């Protein structure tokens, strides 16, 4: 009898402790997610109260005739690959430089970290001002022609601008991850390599880099997750333009859903984004798991 009573209080306790969080994630994720699946099967202009059921027509239309969406997938893929490579290489190099004994170490780290604490939308606007107004003055006083280029008005340059601003904003984050990683590399290992007469390049590739592997894993994972969702910078810096050359998947979904009021169609794209992110994440986790086991 007593034992049974004990079991019930245990269960009640478990419920009281976990039900609040379950309600919260249900409201934020699970209910919206189920609704997303439902909406994706509707034709709905957002004005009428309900949509009409059209089965998988939205998906058919997206995959066969929506060149803008396909282009946005390409843009996002290109952006993600370049972002991941450039930001990690730069951050590792910078981390190695800033990990040495410097008097201004604290200032330097803070300086590179500051943009990361700012809202991306604001960062986008500040850079828009620099590209549109600042470059004109800089061109005038330096005479350099790169300041005269149309950084937001020409397709290839606009792509570079989005990439540059995204990297500028977040490099501090990757930098501190790598600095933390470097600090966990034992000093005597570096010294041993120095004693063996290994040059700086040798030391970097055969001692530092392998020991940084866990940090690289984290940083690449974060860079991928963040770059496939790129949105805020595009909204404030280029608005997806010129044309639709900097239109990312997330931005394309946002525009279709809230500006073109295609509730069903936009939601179908949103579901495709979810499946894409899921597949990429699972692939990434399995690859890294396998590598960790081998290493």
């Amino acid at each position, binding site marked *: 009898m007593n034992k049974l009573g004990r079991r019930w209080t245990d269960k009640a306790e478990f419920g009281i402790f976990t039900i609040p969080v379950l309600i919260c994630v249900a409201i934020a994720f699970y209910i919206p997610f189920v609704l997303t699946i439902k909406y994706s099967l509707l034709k709905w202009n957002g004005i009428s109260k309900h949509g009409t059921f059209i089965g998988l027509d939205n998906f058919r239309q997206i995959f066969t005739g929506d060149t803008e969406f396909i282009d946005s997938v390409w843009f996002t893929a290109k952006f993600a690959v370049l972002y991941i490579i450039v930001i990690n290489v730069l951050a590792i190099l910078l981390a190695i430089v800033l990990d040495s004994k410097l008097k201004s170490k604290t200032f330097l*780290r803070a300086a590179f970290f500051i943009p990361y604490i700012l809202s991306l939308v604001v960062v986008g606007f500040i850079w828009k001002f620099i590209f549109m107004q600042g470059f004109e003055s800089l061109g005038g006083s330096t005479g350099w022609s790169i300041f005269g280029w149309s950084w937001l008005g020409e397709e290839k340059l606009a792509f570079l601008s989005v990439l540059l601003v995204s990297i500028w904003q977040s490099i501090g984050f990757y930098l501190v991850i790598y600095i933390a990683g470097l600090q966990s590399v034992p000093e005597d290992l570096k010294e041993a390599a120095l004693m063996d007469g290994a040059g700086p390049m040798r030391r970097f590739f055969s001692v530092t880099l392998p020991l940084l592997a866990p940090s690289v894993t984290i940083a690449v994972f974060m860079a991928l997750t963040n770059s496939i969702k790129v949105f805020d910078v595009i909204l404030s810096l280029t608005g997806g333009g010129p044309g639709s050359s900097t239109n990312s998947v997330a931005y394309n979904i946002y525009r279709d859903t809230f500006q073109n009021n295609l509730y069903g169609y936009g939601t179908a794209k949103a579901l495709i984004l979810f499946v894409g992110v899921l597949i990429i994440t699972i692939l990434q986790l399995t690859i890294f798991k396998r590598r960790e086991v081998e290493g």
Partner: protein
Amino acid sequence: MRSNTAGRVVFEVVLVLIALLFLYPLFLAVFNSFKSFQEVMTDVIALPKHWTFDNYSYVWKYINYPRLFLNNVVITVIGLFGIILVSSIAAYKLSRTKSRFSAVIYFICIMPMLIPFQSIMLTVLKTAGFLHLSNSTWGLGLLYWGFGAPLAVFIYHGFVKGIPKELDESAKIDGASPFRLFFSVIFPLLKSVTTTIIIIDVMWIWNDFLLPLLMVNGSPTTKTLTLAAYTFVGQYTSDWQYAMTAMVMAVLPSIIVFIFLQKYIVKGVVAGAVKG
């Protein structure tokens, strides 16, 4: 030896210059917020000839800065409070209960980390509307409880494992209720991870854009700082002196906080990334 030290100094000076160049866009934003319209148009890179606070007093009044600042504080505080409360107690119980059922619940809690916000933004808005959470700062704050919970549960769950179970047992023998046990024995021991979660979540909620845009952008009384800056640029497309002032005012609180808490913020961000 001496040339080596000289080289070091030069190297360090170059690094400082690079860092200053890196921050140059921010300096330009600040300088131009103190210029008149004519001055911005004639020369962006020059220092202001006549420093003026006119832009600031104009933008301060126009966007009702104190009100927006308060909105940001309300949203962030409500969100943070709930995320920490709800996630820590759940993570504690889930970590202590070893059963398949408990593992499933844990999975349900952390699984949403895989769902990109843009995949559910429209339906989140609909759900929030149905629950009467839209168009209010506290409604938005409440919504963050769910959005912040997965990562917080994940981080707390891993940390609770390292707290010896004997502590629970001895508190129980002393007759402490489950809540007493959690809040007076366990929660204080979670301090270091709680700090990490506070830092990551404050940076996220304070600067968040898309969710507030969908939830509270309807009225000037519920807007956040970032939203106001965003709307402001839309209305004053060529008045860059006002736009830059709005930008500086939007990011100044973050920069001031960062200058004072730099060490903790960097540590928290690293810890959060490594655990997440």
